[in-house]
């Protein structure tokens, strides 16, 4: 890779000084600046690796919360944004509480990321955070990506995270609200408990528990709660001290007891109030959202609570069971008074309904109630009843069956029967043919029931009267009729009416003279002539009973519905005497039924599905014209005005319905705009022909439903207004639901977009961490920019002469041939150049297409530029801008790193070969073994080193050392320190002197250099080991007896940090067979434990391992290396030096004679083993010594027996042998003999033969060749 990468005027370096690195005014940087780093593993910031400093700078400047973990020891850094998560009042360093909390989650992830180099992501991870005075249940999404170190290996982990508590909580609450609509007894992490109470409007009645989730009995006590107070003023309250009451009970899904609850009133009918007591989670702060959630919950659960309440304890409102709307009319009309002498038999198997009916009827008549048809029949036979009111559906005998039996029974055949039926239609027809006098279809209004019961009682009496032919009592009859609550009339045989009672006159507001004869027919609605007069005349002609429903004008001029019934009257002779009839005003019932139909239709229309606009349109068509001539739905708009979501009115023959979808969408988008107070839109008061019902959501008015009648309609009355209110309530629910759905959808989309972006950024982080060269990085950046928004992207870098060069293009045509790419690079005047100068992105929407120009900058250093061009002319969305800035930031870091890597990679590879000793010199008298394990396989270069340097005589120097840092710088320094130290030792300096001199040299190398090293000189003969230590972990010694000790020394400063240089020498005498273990900290250091633990572990392992003297050291060495932790992210050097268990000198004697030669060679060979000789080298000594001994045997003792002495000595550099006898040598006498001495001279460096009369001594020595052990 050519070095044009990051050269020239934009040459970039990480911030070097502490002030630069920790610049700024934030709390975090202030702390980091003032922190005393000298005592930490990281050391002073000035010595930190470039990547650490660069990345840290980025993290500290980041406005979003980030965590940065460095090195195998996982040293964590956070930024101010992390601090913000915990609130503002934190004073401590790097947000330790947050770190400690999230560490359990991301610690293992970081370790994995460090090990694999692959990015990881954890979504919505629960984190219990002490925040705002509570242990809060929070959620975070973490993205952890590898950070590549100076050497190209993964050296740290960058964790970006975002809090998702709001989203998770909102989703969960939404689900809870939906569940509550089905079953109000819900609970969960956001709602420790929910209890529903009924506070009756009647102050004499006690509040009672309706339904709720599981709680300790103490909380089910109504006295615990301010139920009355809340119901009285309709204002919510909070109750505390519950933890004590509930004896510390902890609800499932929460951490800690819920001490507080929110008490929320929900008005019901009859002045009753439902009260929700909702537990407040101890892990969430109570805020506006929380309140909104509880209100929504109360609204959603309202009906389900009522249902549950009715099922458990039927209340008055339960009478109209099967009804969607509570029947509210229990008010008796003041004008309706009845006679008290008529008994009514009530038959219903439901005790509550029996009681209700008795209470209702009891105000006018005496009642008896039975539960079964059998009892009813018995009572009916006994007589004394004017009417029977029976449920059509009873388990024992159905109402119809009962009627059939009664009609067949002489004692009860004439008793009028009114059936209460759940349904209309066929059953009614069947009932009427069976002999049922009337039907009331549930739900019925109490007014309707009283009117009908009254009418039937009167008619029954009339019938009885005619039957007993009491014509003399006509006057009494009329008096009786006048008292009756029904509208009674009678007619003569010709059909002309001859009597109307007082109630009739009151109803029509006319005089008897106006009504009698055919006058009454004037009151019939013009459209209903075919009904009433027609049915009457038809019945008259046939002399048969009739019944008809029609509209009749009332006193106020409006038309009301009447049910008119008439039966023929017979005179005492049994001749037809005319008709007697009764009319009941069923307007209320008719309108009730109509309202019911409309409500049902609206409900069906809302639930039928489709878009909100479609549903609203449907509602408009249902309400107009059936319920109103005009219907509008207005909601508050974001601009403070009103948005009309629905407009429906009766037009020219057709109903016109408008739902402007644009307005609707705008409203959904803007969210709910509420108005304070409960009034609807201004100008719409309580008009008789108009209803304005507030659309209320969670207690807040967001609009109004306006219904306007017209002249032809009767005025709206209370029940209409109740229906309108109910309509408004349902519309509100649907609007709110639609909006919530919209919000949820929008949120989900945003989350999905954010997740996709996060995933993409993670992907690019991972890709970048694998990229080594500038080209690779640029390609990735450009490709990602293209993927994100289908745009063309170009990465440029400064080239020669201040001109930009395109390094990578994506989507810009083959080779970036397009004009705009050429424009980017052709000149130094392009806007991109100024963007790079200003280090500020520029978003151009100028034609023809949108163009983004971003600097690729790390801090103040600009590495390059990124240009992205959209395929169309539009603005870059904020999301796209964020993402491009992020890509540019990541790309810049990677580019900077790759630029250095390109250069360093080659140099490092070269240096590595020259610096790392892969063979050790063979030194007689000691065995050595060494291994160097690098942290990564990418670049096998680091700052650790070891050395074995044979000195003169019998001394050998051993060195272990560690230069802080990795990569090219550390390697280069290591090389210099290593040769310097060796040189001083070779010159004969003692270890302490050598260290002091090297330290002085080190200070000239680099200002912020730190080197720990331990060197020693081993005396081969004596086993004396002199050593000195410069801040290095103490070497260990394994003694021949298996015990282990430290080579202790005073604490001395490492080389190169500018401290004092008074290194002290220490010494220890090592018995033969001792093993010195020299290592660097990679062997003993593990993240999260003190180094002492690693030292103890090493000592223990050393004791346990068998290490017999003759055995090669590699077994021991490899076993010790397994101590490196699995994370193994630091370099490790291990050097073993074992002093020989065998002596370095030889003293052995032989009887003279050739037979000793074999034994001589055996002993010599054994002894020489410690010298690590090659086969031929050994042969040289065996041969030389053998020749000398042969000579002695042959020459000195040719004819006598004698002793030959062999002495040997091994030193670091040579082996000396001496063979002596006590005889005198003779000269060789044969030509082909006498080759012994030349051979000795040939294989030895020096041979001296000292022949004296008393004996001959041959002294031979040979320097050792620097054979190296493989």
């Amino acid at each position, binding site marked *: 890779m050519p070095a044009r990468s990051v050269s020239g005027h934009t040459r970039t370096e990480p911030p070097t000084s502490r002030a630069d690195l920790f610049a700024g005014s934030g709390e975090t940087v202030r702390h980091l600046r003032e922190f005393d780093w000298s005592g930490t593993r990281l050391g002073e910031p000035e010595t930190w690796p470039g990547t650490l400093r660069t990345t840290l700078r980025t993290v500290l400047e980041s406005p979003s919360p980030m965590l940065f973990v460095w090195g195998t020891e996982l040293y964590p850094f956070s930024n101010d944004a992390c601090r913000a998560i915990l609130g503002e009042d934190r004073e401590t360093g790097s947000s330790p509480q947050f770190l400690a909390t999230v560490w359990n989650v991301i610690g293992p992830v970081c370790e994995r990321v460090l090990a694999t180099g692959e990015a990881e992501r954890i979504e919505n991870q629960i984190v219990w955070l002490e925040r705002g005075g509570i242990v809060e249940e929070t959620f975070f999404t973490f993205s952890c990506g590898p950070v590549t170190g100076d050497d190209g290996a993964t050296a740290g982990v960058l964790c970006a995270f975002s809090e998702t508590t709001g989203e998770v909580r909102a989703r969960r609450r939404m689900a809870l609200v939906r569940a509550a609509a089905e079953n109000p007894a819900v609970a969960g992490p956001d709602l420790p408990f929910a209890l529903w109470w009924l506070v009756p409007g009647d102050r004499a009645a006690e509040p009672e528990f309706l339904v709720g989730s599981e709680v300790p009995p103490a909380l089910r006590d109504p006295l615990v709660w301010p139920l009355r107070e809340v119901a009285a003023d309709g204002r919510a309250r909070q109750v505390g001290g519950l933890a004590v009451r509930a004896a510390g009970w902890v609800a499932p899904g929460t951490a800690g007891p819920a001490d507080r609850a929110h008490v929320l009133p929900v008005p019901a009918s009859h002045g009753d109030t439902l009260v929700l007591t909702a537990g407040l989670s101890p892990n969430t702060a109570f805020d506006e959202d929380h309140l909104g959630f509880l209100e929504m919950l109360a609204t959603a659960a309202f009906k389900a609570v009522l249902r549950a309440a009715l099922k458990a304890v039927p209340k008055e409102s339960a009478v109209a069971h099967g009804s969607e709307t509570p029947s509210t009319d229990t008010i008796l009309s003041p004008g309706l008074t009845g006679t008290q002498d008529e008994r009514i038999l009530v038959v219903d198997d439901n005790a509550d309904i029996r009681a209700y009916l008795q209470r209702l009827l009891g105000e006018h008549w005496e009642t008896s109630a039975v539960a079964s048809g059998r009892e009813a029949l018995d009572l009916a036979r006994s007589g004394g009843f004017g009417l029977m009111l029976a449920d059509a559906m009873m388990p024992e005998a159905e109402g119809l069956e009962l009627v059939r039996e009664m009609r067949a029974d002489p004692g009860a055949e004439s008793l009028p029967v009114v059936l209460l039926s759940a349904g209309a239609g066929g059953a009614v027809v069947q009932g009427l043919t069976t002999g049922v006098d009337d039907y009331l279809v549930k739900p019925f209004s109490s007014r309707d029931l009283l009117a009908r019961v009254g009418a039937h009682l009167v008619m029954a009496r009339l019938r009885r009267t005619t039957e007993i032919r009491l014509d003399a009592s006509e006057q009494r009859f009329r008096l009786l009729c006048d008292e009756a609550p029904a509208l009674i009339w009678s007619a003569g045989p010709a059909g002309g009416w001859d009597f109307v009672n007082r109630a009739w006159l009151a109803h029509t507001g006319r005089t008897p003279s106006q009504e009698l004869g055919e006058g009454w027919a004037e009151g019939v609605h013009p459209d209903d002539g075919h009904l009433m007069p027609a049915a009457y005349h038809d019945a008259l002609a046939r002399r048969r009973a009739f019944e008809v429903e029609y509209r009749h004008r009332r006193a106020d001029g409006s038309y009301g519905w009447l049910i008119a019934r008439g039966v023929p009257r017979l005179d005492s002779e049994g001749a037809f005497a005319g008709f007697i009839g009764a009319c009941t005003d069923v307007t209320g019932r008719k309108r009730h039924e109509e309202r019911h139909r409309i409500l049902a239709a609206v409900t069906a229309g809302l639930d039928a599905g489709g878009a909100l606009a479609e549903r609203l349109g449907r509602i408009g068509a249902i309400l107009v014209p059936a319920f109103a001539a005009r219907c509008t739905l207005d909601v508050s708009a974001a601009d403070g005005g009103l948005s009309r979501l629905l407009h429906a009115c009766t037009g020219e023959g057709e109903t016109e319905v408008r739902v402007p979808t644009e307005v609707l969408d705008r409203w959904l988008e803007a969210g709910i705009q509420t108005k304070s107070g409960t009034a609807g839109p201004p100008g719409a008061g309580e008009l008789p022909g108009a209803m304005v019902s507030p659309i209320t959501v969670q207690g807040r008015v967001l609009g109004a439903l306006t219904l306007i009648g017209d002249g032809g309609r009767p005025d709206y009355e209370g029940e209409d207004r109740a229906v309108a209110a109910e309509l408004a309530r349902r519309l509100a629910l649907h609007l709110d639901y639609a909006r919530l759905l919209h919000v949820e959808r929008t949120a989900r989309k945003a989350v999905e977009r954010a997740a996709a972006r996060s995933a993409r950024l993670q992907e690019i982080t991972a890709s970048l961490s694998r990229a080594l060269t500038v080209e690779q990085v640029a390609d990735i950046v450009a490709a990602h920019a293209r993927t994100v928004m289908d745009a063309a992207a170009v990465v440029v870098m400064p080239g020669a002469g201040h001109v930009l060069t395109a390094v990578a293009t994506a989507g810009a045509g083959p080779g970036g041939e397009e004009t705009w790419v050429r424009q980017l690079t052709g000149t130094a005047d392009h806007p991109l150049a100024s963007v790079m100068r200003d280090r500020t992105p520029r978003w151009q929407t100028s034609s023809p297409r949108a163009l983004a120009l971003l600097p690729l900058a790390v801090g103040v250093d600009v590495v390059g530029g990124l240009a992205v061009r959209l395929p169309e002319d539009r603005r870059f969305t904020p999301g796209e801008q964020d993402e491009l800035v992020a890509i540019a930031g990541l790309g810049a870091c990677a580019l900077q790193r790759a630029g250095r890597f390109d250069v360093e990679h080659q140099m490092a590879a070269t240096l590595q070969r020259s610096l790392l000793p892969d063979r050790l010199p063979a030194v007689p008298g000691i065995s050595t073994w060494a291994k160097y394990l690098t942290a990564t396989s990418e670049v096998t270069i680091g700052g650790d080193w070891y050395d074995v340097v044979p000195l003169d005589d019998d001394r050998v120097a051993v060195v272990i050392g560690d230069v802080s840092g990795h990569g090219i710088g550390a390697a280069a320094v290591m090389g210099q320190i290593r040769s310097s130290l060796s040189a001083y030792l070779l010159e004969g300096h003692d270890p302490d002197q050598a260290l002091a001199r090297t330290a002085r040299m080190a200070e000239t190398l680099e200002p912020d250099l730190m080197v720990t090293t331990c060197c020693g000189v081993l005396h081969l003969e004596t086993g004396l080991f002199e050593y000195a230590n410069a801040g290095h972990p103490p070497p260990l010694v394994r003694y021949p007896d298996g015990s282990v000790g430290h080579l202790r020394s005073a604490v001395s400063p490492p080389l190169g940090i500018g401290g004092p240089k008074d290194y002290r020498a220490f010494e220890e005498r090592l018995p033969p067979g001792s093993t010195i273990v020299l290592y660097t900290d990679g062997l003993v250091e593990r993240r999260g434990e003190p180094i002492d633990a690693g030292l103890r572990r090493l000592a223990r392992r050393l004791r346990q391992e068998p290490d017999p003297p003759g055995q090669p050291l590699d077994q021991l060495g490899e076993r010790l290396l397994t101590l490196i932790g699995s994370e193994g992210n630091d370099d490790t050097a291990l050097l073993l030096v074992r002093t020989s268990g065998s002596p370095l000198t030889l003293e052995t004697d032989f009887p003279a004679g050739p037979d000793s*030669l074999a034994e001589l*060679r055996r002993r010599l060979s054994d002894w020489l083993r410690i010298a690590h000789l090659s086969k031929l080298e050994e042969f040289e000594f*065996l041969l030389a010594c053998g020749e000398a001994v042969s000579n002695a045997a042959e020459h000195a003792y040719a004819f006598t027996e004698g002793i030959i002495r062999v002495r040997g000595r091994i030193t670091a550099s040579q082996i000396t042998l001496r063979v002596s006898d006590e005889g005198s040598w003779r000269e060789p006498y044969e030509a082909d003999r006498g080759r012994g001495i030349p051979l000795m001279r040939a294989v030895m460096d020096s041979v001296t033969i000292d022949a004296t009369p008393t004996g001959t001594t041959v002294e031979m020595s040979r320097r050792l060749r620097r054979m190296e052990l493989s």
Partner: protein
Amino acid sequence: MTTSARFHTRDVSGRAELIVDGEIDASNTEQLYEAVSRAGSGHSTCVVDLTKADYLDSAGINTLFRVHRDLARLGIRLHLVAPLGSCPRYALNLVCAHDVIPVHDAIAGARAAIAAEGL
């Protein structure tokens, strides 16, 4: 303890091959002499194969020179085989034995040389 060496003889079409297995020093040079002269007798050529000899000192080399001279008088040519890098070859090289007796790296080389002589 006496130095031990074993000798194996192989007669192959007019030449003798003697394999020396063990060490040769002053204590067993006579055995070497006898083994070689016995093997060579009745042949035109005798090959002493030292491939399996671990040790050879000046006494051994002297003996080889001596037996070479004695066999030559009988018209029997002596060849030596000692692999490069072996101790005997090192010792032979030190005294320039190949000036007197042909020394081959391997038995195959010796046979080829002998075959060439015979032509």
